[in-house]
């Protein structure tokens, strides 16, 4: 299951990444393995999405969310 499959309000725990380049950026922003993420909102046009992670809100595109595999 990947982050992009979560509905608004659902939570998950990050397990691993499918894309090394993207993972470096995501991890710097606090989106690490073992971290809990929650989907807060989806942009009016369906993409990007906003997630709560490490105590703040991060926005990322659906494609980028699909590289994050959840436990």
């Amino acid at each position, binding site marked *: 299951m990947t982050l992009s499959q979560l509905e608004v309000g659902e939570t998950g725990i990050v397990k691993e990444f499918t894309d*090394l*380049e*993207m*993972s*470096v*950026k*995501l*991890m*710097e*922003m*606090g989106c*690490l*393995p073992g971290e809990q993420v*929650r989907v*807060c*909102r989806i*942009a*009016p*046009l*369906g*993409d*990007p999405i*906003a997630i709560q992670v*490490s*105590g*703040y*809100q*991060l*926005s*990322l*595109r659906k494609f*980028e969310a699909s590289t994050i595999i959840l436990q």
Partner: protein
Amino acid sequence: MKPDIRVALVGNPNTGKSTLFNALTGLNQKVGNFPGVTVDKKTGIAQLPDGRRAEIIDLPGTYSLYPKSKDESIVFSVLAEKGSALTPDLIVIIIDATNLKRNLLLYTQVADLKIPVVIALNMMDMAAKANISIDIDLLSRRLGVPVVPVSARKVEGIDDLKKVISFANKHAMQVDSIDVHAIAPALIADISNEVEVESPYYALQLAHQHEYLNFLTPAQSDKIEELEKKHSFHSQKAQAAETIARYNYINDVLYDTVQTPETAHEESVSNKIDHILTHRVFGFVIFMAVLLFMFQSIFAWSEYPMSLIEDGFVWAEGLLRGVLPAGPLADLLIDGVVAGLSGVLVFIPQIAILFAFISILEDTGYMSRVTFMMDKIMRKVGLNGKSVVPLIGGFACAVPSIMSTRTIENWKDRMITIMVTPLVACSARLPVYTLLIALVVPNKNVWWIFNLQGLALTGMYVLSLVSAVIVAFVMKFILKARERGYFIMELPVYRMPRWNNVLFSMYERSKAFVVQAGKVIIAVSIILWVLSSYGPGNRFENIKKKYSQPQYTQKLPQADLDRLISSEKLENSYAGVLGHSIEPVIKPLGYDWKIGIALITSFAAREVFVGTMATIYSVEGDADNITSVQDKMRSAKTPEGKPVFTLAVAFSLMMFYAFAMQCASTVAVVYRETKNWRWPAAQLVYMTLLAYGAALLTYNLLK
């Protein structure tokens, strides 16, 4: 006077870094460029309690020392270069207390460079509100560095921070965070043998970033490259391992020092606001309403101060006329310089109001919501959600906006944004639009709330955005992508705007406009006055002779005669000759040779159009009858006696200015940002063609 200590201010974006910078330095700051690159460098002087002076350097906000954009790459290179004019003695890192975990990542990286560090813990009041309790003393002991709680917004704790800066150690006291050696032991050892390094982490950073560091010699850089190959170093894997190790360390520290409430799931105020502001229907409606309100206000609120400035100049012209002895010098000063300046200074209120709005939108966090909402549309047309900020900034001025495209990591997205940003109606077009709209559009309301002039102006602004989007869409198919783009962006919580910052930005931008545009305009006004007051050969003498003949002097009253003489003189002056020479090209657009002169002079900067109009009609008009530019233009007549500025001509001119490049500074900045003349050249050509076509179409439709 040389400062006693140099302090670099670093921190994540949205942590109140610039507010802290303003609080530390007051108005005692200057803006320049970092050597070799066009990243804004803000420095200022802070007076320390012990009487010494500290130079504070504000570095661009970044989440990590690994740069993702051009702006961010400055941070490591300034911190790492030894013995330069910017090398800091001390680093002040500003950390958002409500978001310690992510903020501490940058701290651990900076600390591992082994430069003395002080932590300014900002937004303690917000953390208290969110029931986050931080044991500051324990945190300071665990990290081995001073931690000073501050509230940059309320200007609290600034004196404590200054005290700590003045007491700061010359030697780095921080505790090691992670075992840097473990990431690439052999490589770090080898690099330390080649280059003088202060810490293992410094060596590791050289391995990652040596290609972009100007202070390394080519030989050193090649050697590091060679060592990387030898040890089969993989930059991204090493970064991933490092980041995980750092967060493990941070979690460890935070476990002992910070208590966060478990029930953080309760909906925050910020989230509630977001429900409305990024709503699928209301979100866009609100965004449009904000834009409309902004542009209506620019018109409404600036009306009174503008008329004050205008009256002031009319008064000054009259005064000068009375004081100065009549002659060429008085004419040059009054018709050339003062008339040109008044045409420009009068727009300060509008520019200040526009920048107040932009700074409020950025400060409150609304701008990043606009980015969030618009990303999908923007991507469809070849742009990026982040292009929204340069495009909206383009409403103010294309020059800083093109510089701000450096936050766009993707090359293709960035190039397209640069290419279309000058199409957005900038503040230099505002004088042209307001002048022409006031001339031909009646000032009355339709449907109670919509002012016709405001609607026309909003229309010009909407048109500029639409054209930028269409051009971007075309370029999406012309340019080839170099790398993949991503959109990983923090959505900061909503905050009240900081009124000090708003005022500061109004002041700073208006000043920059007056200083930069003022120089060009005075120069252009003087040249223009000379060109329009003198003519080739003995044409002027012939005119004088012609009108001194009895058939004129006896039949016409003196006032009419003077007007005939001066208008024929203008037509035969150098400027008139120049205007006439391009008349065949601009005639289809509805312009006469006088407008032609303005088109030529405003090539350097659009707002010169207004000054040129003022100068041309002052030279032509009689000196005793001083009126504003607008009145002068309204009474302008063609040789057949019809008004020059009809609806068709005014809108054709507006279309021309909407699309034409007409800005030397933008050409220069595009070259600086792209490092290739082909980009500004292509931009100039496509925009001029577009301008001519649009003006031609408009004139023929409205004629």
